[in-house]
Every structure is written in structure tokens, then in C-alpha cells.
């Protein structure tokens, strides 16, 4: 097990990258803690699979170094890195039994038979497949096969990290939830560093301690699910996380006031003058519809999603979403919206701006 350091890491698929746009992965500098559960989250083509392949050694980065603990593994082959990977589609050795599948990595490394038998028994019990050890892997269901791939990774005690490349893509919805729970449990028991690539925010937020959000080849934020929700570092995090995502509006910031279309909104804190394009963002959860004072909105539609209702509206000609609690009556006179001041985030050129210290109103 090891902490993973990405040192000035960048990658371009072009032989001679010039501009920043040539890089599939923009320069980054991160340390991922030993034993952490990380999720790489982002939309398709944001570079998350490239980053995973660099960590696993399938792709060699064009710039920068990858360190496992103190060891520089940039030039090492996948096999030498002692990592395990679970792929998008289950990879099992069809003609082998479950037992042989689990024993395979150990056998290839020349471990002795008694040790192998003990490890296999231990891992089979952990992934709940003791009763199927003598079955051929071929006829098993997709989720069982994914468990075997995972087991083949965990069977080695010296494994540095377990990488998951969208492992639940081919799993039935009801099994997804179970597998995710099991994964989380295994992470607690074994304490391996786990890196999980997904474009599904539910998977990322439920699995990981730290979610790494990627956008356009860049890591835009590494944070706990709560941090991503409350203080998104980038507007992309704002609207990608949450359902529906954060409302973003162009505004001028002066001190602890934001001005939008001639209306004034008070902010929870005071800000230094903002350079560039300034926006404020508010989560639909922190907006409330009222008949009193507030910004004027035009309601379009109300969607009942069970636990709450989503109100789709227009604010100064722009789509705007709010979440209303289940029991709340929505009257015809409720045409104003108010924001919870301390939940408003301020962005300059898409990046979040921190409030000035002691600037609270």
C-alpha cells in the first residue's frame, strides 16, 4: 500500500504539444493518501480514464512523474507496479474455475500452495463466493464476474492500489447498489487505496471519501462530497454535482452585495473586488419561493420527484431551479425567490472566490 503522488503530471497524445489545448491532461500536482477511497468523476472525454491508465501504467505520461510512496514508478510496467485493476467489462479467465481465477496472480508469482489456498479461501469469503469456488467462471453472472476480478486484485497482499474503471457499467441496477456497499465494506476492512473512475455522481459520492472532479483535462476540485456540494471550486462542479445542479447567474459583486439586473442580493460574506466574469451560484436546495420580497421569478413547471418537488422557473429570462419541501403549498402569489445568504458562492471566470476574512455581515 502506498500514497500516490502525481508530480507535475501532464499528458498529451501529440508528439510535440505546444498550447494547453494539446494536452489531454493538463499539468497537475497532487498527493493521494494511502488507504483513501478516491473517485474520479467527470463527463466523458474529460481525461479521467487517461489519468487512471497513467496510474496503472498502461499509458506513460508525456510529462511529470508518478510516485508510489517514495518510489518513482513512471517508467515501470503495469506488472511491476503491484496494482490491481477492475475493468469496465468483467475480465475473468473463462475456462478456469473461480478458485483457479483467484489463485492465478499468486501462482504466477510462484507462491507456495498452502499460502495460495489460505489466501483464496480468505478472499472468497470476503467477496461471498465460497460456495461457488469449484464452478467454471464462464457461466457466472456479470456481477459475480466483477467480484472475481476484484478478488483477483485483492488476493495479493502487497497490492499498492486497486483501480476501478467504471466497474458497474454492465451490472443490473439492483446489483449495483449491493456491489457498491460491498466495495465500501471491503475498503474499510482492507484499507487499500482505491481509485474509482465513474461519470455517475451517485456512485462517486457514495463510494469515495474524496471525490476528484475532472473537467476538460484538469482536476477542478478534490473534496469530500459535502465540500463539493457546499463550496464547489469551479462552476462545473456546481452544475455537475447535485440534481438539479447549481443555479449560476451573472452578477456584479461589491463588498457583501451582488447586483443582478438591477436587483440587489446580500451575500453571506464580503468579497474583494472581483476581476473578470463574475457569477454567483446558489443550490436549488437553498432557494425558497415566497410571496414577500425577493427576486422576481416566473414559474414554468413543478416536478414531484417523491421526497421533494423541483420547481422549474425563469429568472431574468434564464432557467432557474428550486427545490420545495413535499408539503409546501405553492400559491399563485408566490412569484419571488430568496436565497440563503451564507450558501451563495461567488465565481470569477468560473473559479470560486473565497470571501474576505472577517467580512461576515
Amino acid at each position, binding site marked *: 500500500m502506498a500514497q500516490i503522488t502525481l508530480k507535475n503530471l501532464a499528458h498529451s497524445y501529440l508528439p510535440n504539444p505546444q498550447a494547453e489545448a494539446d494536452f489531454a491532461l493538463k499539468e497537475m500536482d497532487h498527493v493521494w493518501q494511502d488507504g483513501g477511497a478516491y473517485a474520479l468523476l467527470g463527463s466523458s472525454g474529460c481525461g479521467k480514464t487517461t489519468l487512471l491508465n497513467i496510474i*496503472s501504467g498502461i499509458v506513460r505520461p508525456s510529462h511529470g512523474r508518478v510516485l508510489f510512496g517514495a518510489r518513482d514508478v513512471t517508467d515501470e510496467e503495469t*506488472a511491476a507496479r503491484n496494482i*490491481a*485493476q477492475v*475493468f469496465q467489462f468483467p*475480465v475473468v479467465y473463462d*475456462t478456469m474455475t473461480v478458485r483457479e481465477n483467484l489463485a492465478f*496472480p499468486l501462482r504466477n508469482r510462484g507462491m507456495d500452495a498452502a499460502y495460495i489456498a489460505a489466501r483464496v479461501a480468505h478472499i472468497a469469503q470476503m467477496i461471498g463466493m465460497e460456495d461457488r469456488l469449484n464452478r*467454471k467462471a*464462464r457461466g457466472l453472472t456479470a456481477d459475480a464476474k466483477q467480484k472475481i476480478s476484484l478478488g483477483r486484485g485483492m488476493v495479493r497482499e502487497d497490492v499498492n492500489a486497486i483501480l476501478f474503471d467504471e466497474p458497474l457499467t454492465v451490472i443490473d441496477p439492483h446489483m449495483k447498489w449491493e456491489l457498491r456497499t460491498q466495495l465500501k465494506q471491503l475498503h474499510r476492512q482492507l484499507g487499500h487505496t482505491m481509485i474509482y473512475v465513474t461519470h455517475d455522481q451517485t456512485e462517486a459520492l457514495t463510494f469515495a471519501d474524496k471525490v476528484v472532479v475532472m473537467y476538460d483535462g484538469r482536476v477542478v476540485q478534490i473534496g469530500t462530497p459535502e465540500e463539493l456540494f457546499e463550496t464547489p471550486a469551479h462552476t462545473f462542479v456546481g452544475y455537475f454535482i447535485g440534481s438539479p445542479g447549481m443555479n449560476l447567474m451573472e452578477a456584479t459583486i461589491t463588498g457583501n452585495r451582488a447586483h443582478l439586473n438591477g436587483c440587489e442580493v446580500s451575500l453571506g460574506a464580503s468579497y474583494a473586488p472581483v476581476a473578470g466574469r463574475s457569477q454567483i451560484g446558489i443550490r436549488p436546495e437553498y432557494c425558497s419561493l415566497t410571496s414577500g420580497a425577493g427576486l422576481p421569478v416566473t414559474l414554468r413547471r413543478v416536478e414531484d420527484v417523491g421526497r421533494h418537488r423541483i420547481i422549474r422557473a425563469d429568472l431574468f429570462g434564464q432557467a432557474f431551479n428550486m427545490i420545495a419541501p413535499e408539503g409546501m403549498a405553492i400559491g399563485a402569489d408566490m412569484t419571488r425567490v430568496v436565497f440563503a445568504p451564507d450558501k451563495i458562492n461567488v465565481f470569477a471566470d468560473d473559479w470560486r472566490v473565497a470571501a474576505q476574512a472577517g467580512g461576515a455581515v
Partner: protein
Amino acid sequence: MDKTQNNKAWFLVLPVLVIVAFSAVIPLMTVVNYSVNDTFGENEFFWNGLGWFEDMIASDRMHSALGRQVLFSAIILAIEVPLGIFIALHMPKKGFWASFCLVLMALPLLIPFNVVGTIWQIFGRVDIGLLGHGLASLGVDYNYTNDALDAWITIIVMDVWHWTSLVALLCYAGLQSIPQAYYQAARIDQASRWSVFRFIELPKMSGVLLIAVLLRFMDSFMIYTEPFVVTGGGPGNSTTFLSIDLVKMAVGQFDLGPAAAFSIMYFLVILLVSWVFYTVMTTLDNAETK
């Protein structure tokens, strides 16, 4: 359910039934007719029952032709299947050379059988053939027209040249369908090259291999044109395979009755072997899944 029972859909099978009847069943019936009758021409037939069949089963000539045929198919399969797999494993996976190899491999398959025979017939001649004359100049005593072993070697090399591509191309298609993730997983598991072949490539190829073996078995068991052109069944009877013998009997000697009985048994042997082979392979496959 208020669906009316209607079995008229069966009529849709009729066209196929008619085509198959004309292409296979009716011609076969004329053969059946000959096999149970004796005739001296003029459309006069004398009932002989199973007499021809009994004669043929007891015939030494049949036995030795069958023996040669089995040996030939066994050698062909033993060479072409491993060689085809080996070639497929070493073919480039993409780019210009992949297409180049595919075209090159497909060429022998496109040559008509009698042309293949003619090519090798000339190629092997000691007086003017590149191979025959080349070997003779090197001091090798090679002459496929009067040495049985040389004749066998020539025909086997010719068949390998002609048909290994088929096995190779089928295996290549099977290999191409293996996702990269399997190879990556094997690398992570530190599998040896042999393990990768044994546990990933071979299982993934088993489907196409089954078809390749079946096709090569049937074709080699029925081989006629190429050895007929190259050796004409000789020297002596050393390369007289079943079809060649059958033609000699039917068209050469005009023994239509025995030849008909012979061909029906020939047909049944191929059908039986193919069926047994297919059934064994598929049940093995299913047994593994259970």
C-alpha cells in the same frame, strides 16, 4: 388469449423444401436407386437389395482407400490447425501490414482447385518445375510421379499452402475480438505468454476453431481435384483417396451399382463424423458452463 390457431406459416418453409429437394434429395435418390439395383444400361434395372453395400464393406480396395483418406485428413488437421493458429498470433494487428497480410493470406483461397493442382503439378516437375528441378539440383532424390512418399509430401504441402490461410484468417478474426482489457489484466496478474495463450486466446478462439476444424476435416476428407490433377492417384494407388477411387469405379469402370453404394456410405461417414465432432464439441462447451 383470443388468438386463432393458424399453422399456415408452415407453408413459408415450402420454397426451401423445394430447393433442397431439387438440389440434394432427388439427385441423392437416383444414387440410392443405383445402389440397390444392377443395370446394364438401356434403363433396365435388376433388384440387388443390399448386395452392393455388402460387397463394398468387404472390399479391400475400399478399406485401403479409406485408410489413406483418414491418414490424409489426420495429417492435414495436425499441420494446418496449429500452423494457422501460429500464423494468426503473429500477424500484425492493425495498420498497412495487417491489410497486406490479410490479402496475401486470402490469395490461395481464391484460386480454383484445378488451377492449384496444375500449379503444383508443374512446380514439382523435375524437368521444368522450380521446386522439382531446384531439389534435383541440390541433390535431393525427389520425384512425385514414381515415389509414393514424395507424392504424399507434395500433396500435403500443396493442401497446407492452399488451406492454412482459412484456419489462420478464422483464428485472426477470433483474436481480434478479444478486448484489450484481457491483455492488461493478464499483465497485471503477471501471466506468462503461454498462460495468455492458454487461458485467454485459446478459449476465445474455440468457437472459430471448431468451425475451422470442421471445414478442414470435411474438405480434406472429400478432396478430389488437386490430387487428381497432380498425381492422378498414383504412383500405383498410393494417393488414390476415396473420391478418386469412387470416380474411377463409376466413370472409369462403369460399375454404377457399387459406386452408388460406395458414395452413400462415403456421405454417411462424413455426416456421422461431422455430427459426432460437432456434438462432442458443443456438449463439452456446455458442460464447462454448468
